[in-house]
């Protein structure tokens, strides 16, 4: 299997290159199951977190352990934007987004309890990989809707086009077959 080597702090990984759509392959970075990498990336991103950030928000699922580690280190609370509304949620705020990778509609859901924490606060979005930025845009507008201000986005990797609007630790290529 073809791989792509990445290095984050003292940890390196050989990421498998996987086709995710016809003619489109990615170097698959997955923090789920990789506690040492999550801790290392979390430590480095925590050091880059702007001081005016009050609360962290992360989309379910793959970046959850990363937000957990950054929260533990910085003491800033983190909130997970869920993919489904849960029966126990208090007046959840729901937003439908179209997933770039699957083309299917997907939900972003914030529990009403968490809306109170976000309102009037400076928010940092935490993600593992930022590619087209679709999730970022959806999360940002959702935050604006409930009264939070996104002041930073932190990710382990950007992917595809380089971008200067996010704080990252590295960059992954997109593999496009002509």
């Amino acid at each position, binding site marked *: 299997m073809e791989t792509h080597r990445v290095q984050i702090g003292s940890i390196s990984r050989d990421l*498998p290159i*996987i086709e*995710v*759509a016809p003619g489109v392959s*990615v170097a*698959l970075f997955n923090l*789920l*199951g990789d*506690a*040492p990498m*999550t*801790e290392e990336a979390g430590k480095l991103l925590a050091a880059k977190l702007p001081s005016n950030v009050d609360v962290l928000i992360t989309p*379910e*699922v793959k970046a*959850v*352990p990363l937000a*957990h*580690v950054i*929260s*533990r280190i910085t003491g800033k*609370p*983190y*909130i*997970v934007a*869920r*993919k489904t509304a849960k*029966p*126990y949620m208090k007046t959840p705020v729901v937003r439908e987004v179209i997933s770039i*990778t*699957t083309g299917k509609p997907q939900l972003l859901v914030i529990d009403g309890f*968490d809306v109170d924490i976000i309102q009037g606060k400076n928010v940092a979005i935490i993600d593992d990989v930022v590619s087209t930025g679709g999730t970022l845009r959806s999360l940002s507008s959702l935050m604006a809707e409930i009264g939070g201000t996104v002041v930073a986005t932190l990710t382990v990797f950007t992917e595809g086009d380089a971008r200067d609007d996010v704080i990252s630790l590295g960059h992954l290529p997109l593999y496009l077959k002509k």
Partner: protein
Amino acid sequence: MNSTSPVDMFALTIGGITRDVPLVRLASNRRLPLVEFLGDTQLCAAAALELQKLLPENAQVLFTCETSSIPLVHDLAQISKLPYEVARKRRRPYMNDPLIQEVASMTLGVGETLWLDKNRSENLKGKQVVIVLDVVASGGTIQALERLILRSGGKVCARVAAFSQGKPKLELKVAQELPIFDGVG
């Protein structure tokens, strides 16, 4: 605490950390304390220390499913120096020849599906695997995770959970048993 009196909150304690959590109603009109590890790093750290005491010495891999157990299992993996794997609830575009396992979820009364990518299931093969969950209710999720371990060629070494709702019906090591409250309130 009197389990028939209508109370709205419950003092949840694990590893010396206490949280006042709301009681949530089940379809059966019984009420349960709401456990939430997402967003609570202190509760995770305390519960992970309690779960570490329940791990058998021969444990080689931890295994859970998304999402609410993930930060807890991350912490447990970190302090026990064991690797972990996560069964997913949706098929991801990058999955290749995944194992697909149906689970009968009693809480919602509807079936769920767990997905484990082939290259992740290889990490369970020939290993002593411990199932780790934040909360166990009916045990339906545990049974589905067990099937995934066996289908991956691994062995079920133990089942551990931070909390169980009432007395667990299957063989399970829990750090804390949660009370179930009756109806009205």
